[in-house]
């Protein structure tokens, strides 16, 4: 058991995710068990509404877990304080930011909050981390721009920089390429892959870019109605996981190309 926790930064066991309101419980997905290796770039894929975002929000404790256990670094997530968790997991969500007059630099600096004192003074280390995050995401030219002046792709990079500045072992991104064009999408995937290998952080994303995820990610987790597949591309191919993703005939997995292709009938 100990070796599982050593190798895997995140261990999810028999988890049920969903929403709890007063006495009504709406279960989105259950029986989720998976391990995520330290320092890997992981994509969670699956159909719309299967529970990708709900799962990510539960792992980051934005939503309460309904059942099962989530263990991060060998410690149950419920034993983490808010601040401790904020030092372990950083988030990039799909929701729109409220309108404000924040600049790129100010927004990235907010990532340092779990590390700063009560009045939020930035120490030398804080400033170093912020500058490093700006450099890694290539935002030097935009640093003094206001966030409402940015394009979707630029804003996504700023949000990734904020998560980097938070300096956590795990970064979770919910559909980081949702509103982006093909070029920007590939750039974000490559940035995330580069960051994983350079910083040894664990980056977990949810995505609909299956073909791109197959090409760039170290590990894939496929959520489907009956079963959850998780592993490297080759293990998933042995398990016929990709064939089970879409039931329709419109999109099919081509084993030789290792890509999904559109059926031309």
């Amino acid at each position, binding site marked *: 058991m100990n070796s599982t926790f050593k190798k895997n930064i995140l261990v999810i066991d028999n988890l049920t995710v969903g929403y709890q309101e007063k006495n009504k419980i709406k279960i989105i997905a259950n029986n989720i068990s998976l391990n995520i290796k330290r320092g890997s770039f992981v994509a969670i894929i699956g159909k719309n509404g299967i529970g990708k975002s709900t799962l990510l929000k539960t792992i980051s404790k934005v939503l309460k877990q309904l059942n099962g256990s989530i263990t991060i670094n060998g410690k149950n997530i419920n034993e983490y*304080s808010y601040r401790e968790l904020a030092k372990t*997991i950083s988030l990039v969500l799909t929701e729109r930011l409220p309108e*404000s007059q924040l600049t790129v630099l100010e927004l990235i600096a907010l990532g340092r909050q779990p590390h700063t004192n009560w009045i939020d003074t930035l120490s030398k280390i804080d400033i170093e981390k912020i500058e490093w995050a700006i450099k890694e995401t290539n935002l030097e030219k935009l640093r003094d721009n206001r966030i409402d002046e940015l394009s979707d792709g630029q804003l996504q990079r700023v949000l990734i920089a904020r998560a980097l500045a938070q300096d956590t072992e795990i970064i979770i991104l919910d559909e980081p390429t949702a509103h982006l064009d093909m070029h920007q999408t590939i750039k974000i995937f490559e940035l995330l892959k580069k960051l994983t290998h350079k910083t040894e952080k664990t980056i977990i994303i949810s995505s609909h870019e299956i073909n791109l995820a197959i090409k760039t990610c170290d590990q894939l987790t496929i959520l489907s109605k009956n079963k959850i597949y998780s592993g490297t591309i080759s293990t998933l191919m042995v398990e016929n996981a990709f064939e089970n993703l879409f039931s329709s005939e419109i999109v099919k997995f081509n084993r030789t190309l290792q890509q999904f292709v559109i059926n031309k009938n």
Partner: protein
Amino acid sequence: MKKSTNISIKNSFILLSVLLIVFFFLNISLGSVSIPFEDIINIFTGKSISKESWHTIILDFRLPKAITALLVGSGLSVCGLLMQTLFRNPLAGPFVLGVSSGASLGVAILILGSSVFGSFFVTNSISNWSLVIASSLGAFLVLFAVIISANILRNTMSILIIGLMFGSLTAAVISVLAYFSEAQQIQQYLFWSFGSLGNLTWTEINVFSSIYCIGIFGSFTIVKTLNSFLLGENYAKSLGVNIKRSRIIILLITSLLTGVITAFSGPIAFIGLAAPHIAKILFNTSNHKILLPASALIGAIILLICDCIAQLPTSEFTLPINAITSLFGAPIVIWLLIRKKKIFV
């Protein structure tokens, strides 16, 4: 973090502080009795002055009034800023929680109720303290209800609606009370609702300013949380903020400040909504480390100016402060908005 913006922020703060001091002394020097400026300086420095009565006028009437204006203006502005950030709504102000409506209800029951319920209230003359106690009780009753609903409700917007509902409810109760009251009582209540910065004794100022200090200090301790709220509640949570606790702290500070201000000076409109917007437009930032002191300074300055106007220099009359704040303030905000074209939370 750019140097040039840092300098301009520093300069703006120096300018605002100078304006505050200027209008503070201008406020003291204006009134129905004209007192030469040198004599005012002499009174503060303890030198001899030409007329002994001036001593009393300045130290026991005008100085407490100017201090009240300062506390009320800055306190309401800070509340407004907190509410706008918490609800991420530019229309939010200190009165949205219905706390001041609660205070009004307390006072209405005290003044109007005495004619409706007759002998229940023994004395006819209503002292300042009983007004303060009645409005504090009303404010805290509503505060209590708001905090309870904040604990039950997960959605921040629902709290806003509930606050507005409390406002409507109390307004309705006041209408009913007024319907059954005599003209004299209605007039007395109306005068209270006009707002007044004067008539506070030094003891009252001491009580007022101690509670004010607690509220202001409290708001400075949550600057970090307020900044994290700029990203929305989910991001704030992911930055380690305890949302529920922070929400209650913000509500407590606002209610405490609004409650005590309304108790001592009546429901003063406009400042709490406008001053934070003026600060946001002037400083071009959403950072609460800057906005909090800036709103406080601007609110205090506006109220001091409004009070100068309300005194109608060299005249015996004093206009209701509540009318002046909106009469002169609203066009300024409209003008600023049209110029800047955009408003931020």
